[in-house]
């Protein structure tokens, strides 16, 4: 896999693929394709035979009650489940037609392509600058100090944080407010030029204004990335996503256009969940 590029911030372009074996994506092909994915934690099966396509330049929201498997599914997209003792994933997850569970795939490089943002902002105990520069540094994305400064500035700019932090880049990342920290973490994720951004309840620890800023950011990032977001807020799923998938008891119950899911879902379980009748 070749990681270095002329402009490390540029979104992935067609013909700018990271692996030689990857199939060139066309408009119709999904960015991520899950086929019959099941996940076991020891003897316990957490996810049952989930097949779901997630498109380029689209926000896909995963919704469902606690323990429904939506986070487990999200974590299988960048092989985060590998880090859990006793976790086993069967089925296939393809990114641009390439199976990410293939032996030849280095999970560290995979996670550079597939960035992740967690529920609680988790900035490193370093300066704002170093937080954003960290990933770019370990992946060798910048060849000079100036290039690194460009990466940091552009990433913070894209995360909508640049104007708020440009005069204090060397203060600790933890000195920022919760909402700013979450945007810092998003800046850190996009600094390594990922193709996909996974978000696991990115706003659940934030106030409504900070939430609105993140949602606005998600909408902007959508033009360049494939975004998959797990959220407990139905209203948030409705606001930010174009497609929604509803999980229940480890199974994918229904997936479709967000508008359809929230106005006229096909399955009665989806109906009951989104109208607040169980969950």
């Amino acid at each position, binding site marked *: 896999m070749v990681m270095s590029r002329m402009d490390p911030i540029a979104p992935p372009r067609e013909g700018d693929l990271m692996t030689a074996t990857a199939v060139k994506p066309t408009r119709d092909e999904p960015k991520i394709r899950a086929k019959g994915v099941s996940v076991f934690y020891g003897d316990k099966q957490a996810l049952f035979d989930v097949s779901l396509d997630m498109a380029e330049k689209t926000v896909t929201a995963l919704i469902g009650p606690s323990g429904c498997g939506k986070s487990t599914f999200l974590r299988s997209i960048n092989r985060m489940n590998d880090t859990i003792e006793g976790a086993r994933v069967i089925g296939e997850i393809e990114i641009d037609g390439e199976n990410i569970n293939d032996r030849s795939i280095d999970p560290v490089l995979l996670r550079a392509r597939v960035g992740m943002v967690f529920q609680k902002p988790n900035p490193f105990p370093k300066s704002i600058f170093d937080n954003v520069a960290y990933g770019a540094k370990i992946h060798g994305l910048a060849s000079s100090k100036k290039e690194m400064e460009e990466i940091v500035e552009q990433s913070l700019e894209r995360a909508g944080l640049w104007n708020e932090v440009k005069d204090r880049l060397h203060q600790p990342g933890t000195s920022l407010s919760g909402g700013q920290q979450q945007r810092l973490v998003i800046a850190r994720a996009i600094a390594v030029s990922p193709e996909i951004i996974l978000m696991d309840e990115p706003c659940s620890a934030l106030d409504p204004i900070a939430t609105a800023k993140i949602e606005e950011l998600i909408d902007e990032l959508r033009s360049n990335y494939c975004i998959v977001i797990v959220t407990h807020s139905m209203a948030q799923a409705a606001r930010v996503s174009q497609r929604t998938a509803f999980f229940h008891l480890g199974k994918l119950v229904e997936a479709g256009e967000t508008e359809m899911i*929230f*106005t*006229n*879902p096909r399955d009665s379980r*989806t*109906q009951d969940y*989104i*109208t607040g*009748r*169980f969950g």
Partner: protein
Amino acid sequence: MTEHTVRSFSADLEDLSGDLARMGGLAEDMLSDAIQAIATRDLALADTVVARDPQIDNLQVEAEKKILRLLALRQPLARDLRQTISALKIAAELERIGDLAKNIAKRAKVLDTIGPIAALKGVARMGKLVGTQLKQVLDAYSAQEADVAGKVWARDEEVDEHYQSLFREVVTYMIEDPRTISACAHLLFVAKNLERIGDHCTNIAEEIHFLVTGEQLPTERPKVDALNSN
């Protein structure tokens, strides 16, 4: 349908359905009394119809307030959302039906001053038909049955045909005896009001279909045009 986890949400929706049922009941009674007032020249009954109209208007205002509150505080989704939005539209349809029934009742006074005319029977028959349409569409709403609503929707053609033949009949009377023109003109307005009530019933039927299935009925229904068929 199962209860909401937040039970007051279910209670709010039921409360709204209650308002709509009261409006529907009022509209139904007003319509049948207006027809009866015309057919039997019962002016006192006609007056009560006119006097009842503000009740429907007030209920509509109340229902709209509740719907606004539901949208703002509960953010209903899926079927709940469709139920809320269709209640808003159906309340407006029922309010219009109330107005039209009131207009029919008002004409009872004018028709009372002129001699008996044969066309009155035709109007009474049409009134009965429209009354049945209204009753059935309201039943379909309270039972939330898209099939029944669909039947009402399809049967509006019959109302239109009735209107068309009544129109021809009344015009014939006018030609035969110009002294009846004034009365006949009033009768035509009554018939037109009934035809409009029929249209409001089909609008309600369309809302019920949307509420239950999440899909729209086709916008075009076969129409009989009284203007072109003469």
